[in-house]
């Protein structure tokens, strides 16, 4: 079956692209992903905070007569950036599929330089993940947007490889923002970033931070927006968050996604899960009236949909109005 797709100007053999995760920290698991059929891979993110943290002076001396230090000094000799670049080069040299580097941060300081280094190290594209919580009540929406745009255009200035922006859903006017990104040189957007949400432990009355993996079903938000954007922007569209099954992935393509990112399901079930999803997509395509995936891409987008209102407010009104209490009563 022809599952080929185009993403950021790169032809991919299928739309399944593992997103940034610890799986690319190991060549072994990265290779397993490739073997399972991944068409490209987004490398784990280079975090701004890690660079800052690792950049502090290394104190060889801890001030006691018998111990110069407690952790082997030589372990720290390599900086995070250096390690990251090396791993990128290793991934590039051992994988045949494209490798997309990911930058995760919010400040301008140093990012342009880092992006350049990632491009030089052989990244096929850059994903810029501006993980920014607009918690400053004095900051306006346009100021927040400006941060993204400034970061993007700075980066665009120095790298020639494609850049995709991974966005959160928290924009007043997402479509407009996507347009602005396009105008500032982006080649794609990935929808949506999942912010790890702090939780409250009600017994200890403490904030509990823990990794929460996505669930199948969480993909609907991204699906809606991809459906809205498809055909109305020249940017490549990547669907991310909550894709766990072949069905989820097919839906994303039908909505208009050029690629579908996978993460939580691979962390839960291992790299081979990708092969299962791929197989499921192939089976669906075979049974479907379409000859290629490219053909069915976006057929359920808002633009092509017979019911464009379903992606907007009307849908909501209908749903609420139609809700009835189950016959079995309250659960």
């Amino acid at each position, binding site marked *: 079956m022809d599952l080929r797709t185009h993403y950021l100007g790169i032809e991919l053999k299928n739309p399944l692209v593992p997103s940034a995760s*610890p799986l690319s*920290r*190991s*060549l*072994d*698991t990265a290779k397993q992903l490739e073997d399972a059929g991944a068409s490209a891979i987004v490398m784990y993110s280079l975090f701004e905070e890690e*660079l*800052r943290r*690792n*950049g*502090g*002076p*290394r*104190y*060889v*001396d*801890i*001030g*006691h*007569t*018998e*111990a*110069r*230090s*407690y*952790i*082997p*000094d*030589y*372990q*720290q000799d*390599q*900086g*995070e*950036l*250096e*390690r990251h*670049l090396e*791993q990128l080069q290793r991934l590039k040299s051992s994988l045949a599929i494209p490798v997309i580097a990911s930058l995760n941060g919010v400040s301008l*300081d*140093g990012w342009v*330089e*880092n992006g350049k*280094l990632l491009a030089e190290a052989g990244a096929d594209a850059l994903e810029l993940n501006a993980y920014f919580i607009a918690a400053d009540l004095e900051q306006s929406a346009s100021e927040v947007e400006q941060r993204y745009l400034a970061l993007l255009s700075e980066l665009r200035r120095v790298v020639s490889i494609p850049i995709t922006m991974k966005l959160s859903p928290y924009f007043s006017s997402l479509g407009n923002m996507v347009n602005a990104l396009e105008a500032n040189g982006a080649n794609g957007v990935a929808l949506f970033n999942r912010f790890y949400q702090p939780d409250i432990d009600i017994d200890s*009355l*403490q904030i509990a931070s823990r990794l929460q993996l996505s669930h199948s079903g969480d993909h609907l938000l991204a699906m809606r927006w991809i459906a809205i954007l498809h055909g109305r922007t020249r940017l490549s569209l990547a669907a991310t968050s909550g894709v766990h099954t072949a069905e989820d992935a097919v839906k994303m393509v039908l909505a208009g996604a050029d690629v579908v990112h996978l993460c939580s399901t691979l962390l839960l079930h291992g790299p081979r899960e990708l092969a299962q999803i791929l197989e499921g997509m192939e089976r669906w395509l075979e049974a479907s009236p379409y000859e290629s995936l490219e053909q069915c891409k976006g057929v359920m987008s808002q633009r092509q949909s017979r019911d464009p209102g379903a992606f907007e407010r009307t849908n909501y009104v209908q749903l609420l109005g139609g809700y009835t209490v189950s016959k079995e009563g309250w659960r």
Partner: protein
Amino acid sequence: MKQQFLTIDGNEAAATIAHLANEVIAIYPITPASPMGEHADEWSSQGRRNLWGTVPKIIEMQSEGGAAGAIHGALQTGALTTTFTASQGLLLMIPNMYKIAGELTPTVFHVATRSLATHALSIFGDHADIMAARSTGFAFLGACSVQEAFDMALIAQAATLESRIPFVHFFDGFRTSHEVAKVEEVNKETVRAMINDELITAHRRRALNPEHPVLRGSSQNPDLYFQAREAINPYYASTSAIVQQCMDRFAALTGRPYHLFDYVGADDAERIIVMMGSGAETAHETVEHLNAQGERVGVIKVRLFRPFDSAALIKALPATVKAIAVLDRTKEPGADGEPLYKDVITGIAQSFANGTAPLSMPRIIGGRYGLSSKEFTPGMVKAIFDELKKPQSKNSFTVGIDDDVSHTSLVWDSTFRTQASLKHNCAIFYGLGSDGTVSANKNTIKIIGEHTELHAQGFFVYDSKKSGAITVSHLRFGPEPIRSTYLIGDDSAHFIGCHQPVFLERYDMLDKAALGATFLLNTTASPDKAWNILPRRMQQQIIDKQVKFFIIDAYRVAEEAGLGRRINTIMQTCHFAISNLLPKEQAIAAIKHAVEVSYGRKGQQLIEINFRAIDSAIANLHQVTVPTTVTSNFERPAPVAVNAPEFVQRVTAAMLADRGDTIPVSAIAADGTWPLGTASFEKRNLALEIPAWDEDLCIHCGKCPFVCPHGVIRSKVFDPALAADAPPTFKHAPVKGKEFPEGWHITYQVAPEDCTGCGLCFDICPVKDKENPGRRALNMVPQSPLRVSERQNWEFFLTLPEFDRREVKTSLMKSAMVLQPLFEFSGACSGCGETPYLKLASQLFGDRMVVANATGCSSIYGGNLPTTPWAKNNEGRGPAWSNSLFEDNAEFGLGMRLSIDKQREFASELLHVLRDEIGSEQVEALLNADQSSEAGIHDQRERVAELRALLKTIDKSEARQLESIADQLVLKSVWIIGGDGWAYDIGFGGLDHVLASGRDVNILVLDTEVYSNTGGQTSKATPRGAVAKFSAGGKPTAKKDLAMIAMSYENVYVAQVAYAAKDVHTLKAFMEAESYPGVSIIIAYAPCIAWGNDLGQNHQMQDLAVRSGHWPLLRYDPRRTAIGENPLQLDSKAPSIDYREFTGNEVRFSMLWRSHPEVAENLLDESRREAWSRYHHYEQLAGLPFDQPPEEKK
């Protein structure tokens, strides 16, 4: 070829050669030699290759004895093999050294010399270790400096291959091993040229090989052994010539000539000092100075100590010599002279006896100096030369101390300075161990070394404490090679940097300032206020010595530049800006270049931040205008309170004030005995924040005093009438709970000046303020505003009576925690995971504890002077503590048990003998006393007191005997305490034997899963996947299950505890272990700074370890079998979080993900599996029905 200069220390110099010229390196950590092993491990892990293009194989062994065995085996099978050690480590190698030498096996052991443990352990440098090994048959080649450690390491390597005699290459621990100096590199080409590959082939040809087998290590009989011993003579006879040839070849290659004995001094010298090691450099400097003043003196530096070539010595002596002082850096009690002295005197006497002496017989005296790195200064050298002038020079003298008992000591002029030393530019820096001062200074030395023709030397004096440790850096720069192997003295420093304002209170820093010196202070005070924060004496010194006074608010500059609290680069910049070592612009450029080199590809961002800090440092550096008169109205506070006991005032205070060198011999007990409780007099005021108790919120759970690593939070329950005269801010509240008398009050009081501010009390507090859940019943608040009032409250608290031990319900945490800790204010790391266990034991059993403490962290924070945290209660009772060695602690403790049991048995026998005099009823009461409770013990103590009174009236020898051992009728609790390095590795054989002994001892293993004290080397307790020194690539093997091993004896009480994961479980385990009438072992999880995490996370780390299954909590109590129950109780639940959650939280594991992600992932998988299967296995064992064995079939 142009010579390359390096700035390295002696350890790195020696290790460089060792790594280059060997194939197998067997190591074991011991101060001060550990860094050599660490370097070798580092280089091999980075793939650095030796001379022949292969990466040397490194193995860490379980002890130095084990290392020596492995070396012997490796040598016997043909590998070029080496090791690094010191002190007791060398002693443990001695049996193998005899073997290695006896079999004529070439090898070099590199030794950073260190004192031996005698009346006390000392990690510092002297020659006791090499002297103890001098009869092994090894050759001993000594280096006097960092350069020589480089050079002699190679000369030894070349000579051993040629002579077949194994070598010890030694240099002075700390003074040379840790001194950073600018040296000429001994490059690979030189090493290549010095090592003859044919000799290596010959070594391999002699190896054991089944292709052409031979037998070695036979057992010989009277007919043969003696001849065989003499068969080696020709090899020894030729060794000194071989060494000299190697030295000559080396000189041709490098231009640095050496001789077996190098003479420095006047050709017509009459007075000569003979010595070896770093002190010879000071003697060299002094000799040149004195000769320039018209004296005729000289020094002989002994290079090859064994084989001792008397002829070469005689040849080196000028014929004019009339008097010789031979200096030994060791003491051989009972001998009529120390080893080098006797060798010299024998050699010279022999030359007269056989008529070869080219000179007239000189007077020869011997003396001791520099034990345990005691300072050896030009003034002392001069005093020795002066002594040699006297017709009746003092023999067996000492220099460097005030021996007012045996009057051996020479008097020296401490103000004497050599011309050479006056040419040095000297700088001293006072910093915290953690603020990067030492790193910055090493960097400064490197910059000067690389950018100028100047020679440079750095020596770093560290604290005996681990928390809030201070480091004093001594830096010298000068146009000539620096031979000053002593600290910068009073009135000698041209620059003094004080990196922490709190040191103004603690040290007389300006004593060191030379006339016109510069003083740089890091302070928040503005230029117009800075003068007034100085104590009076300091102000006077600034005026008198015309000191230029500069200040900078380095923390603000760091914060603003984005460096957080890292001030080292800023202080370094200021030093360069005002010291004129380099033109300012050049210096700044050099610092910036160093920043670029060290941050490299870590990103432009960091480089920019540092550049900003450097520029801002210059802009924020201010010179303070010094008034002409002293204006300050305060002096530096006394080191201890005025009400401290006389001994503390006289001895401890002197040590605390850095005046320990002036303490005379008479002030110290000759047998190493010291009083307890001295840590309480040392008010260190380390905490920026201390806990404040909210008596309204508190539920009196007792968790905060339980977890406090430093024993600074205390609770007492008392009659509130006693608080009538309490200071106004003293807090107390009616105590909750029926276990206390009605109407009584409880207080939780902090010792504000002893707290380290770790915040773990706040962390553990379970109470939340309903209105503000961030607030608890204890909250961290700034210390300084509370210092005075809380000090008064603490003093008042101490006057409140202790709660009656008989009434304490030790099964309840809140109740147990009113027991007085007899382990308080240790110098352990802030937030230490070990000390709460010791404190707990001291609370529960301290008044009857005898402690055998293995060498390690616990012996250092427990017994490293000047103070000890082990303390006495108001009745004068407390833990009696001792440290024997590292390897023998279990046996040491068992010996204590046997001794106490024997004396108790004898006392019982004497009671029977004296039954008529004492009274039958009293004898039976004494013999059959139930001492299973505090009340029982109390009653028995009263009986013993009555017995003592009665015995005084009995005029029988048995009564005298019984008087001396009657104490043993009261129960004694023997505790064998140590870390995992001891229990899992070096002491495991002994531990196993004690486990099997069935004796009533309590073993406490403080399991930090790493050798903590020596700097974080791997032990067999280190978990799989953790990164530690000697496991740079992550430990590939699993942690040893010590609990399972102990349980296999079936009659041993075993508990595995983690106090912050389940506190009552720990409490219960301690009570059960102590009450068990046989061997008990508690394996206690103890988070450590060596794991790389902030110890503020201590509790969380314990919790995750237990919940992930890494550390199952369990108790195995053999007593349960008697009631038909399974002895094993598994006290923690099955793993409830993924193992990744546990390891991901700790730097020791997570750093492997960065360096070797795939290895980390694989090791994690294995560990996860292990954790599950171990838990499952324990669960199965604990779940087995426990049936009594069948009766014997009749």
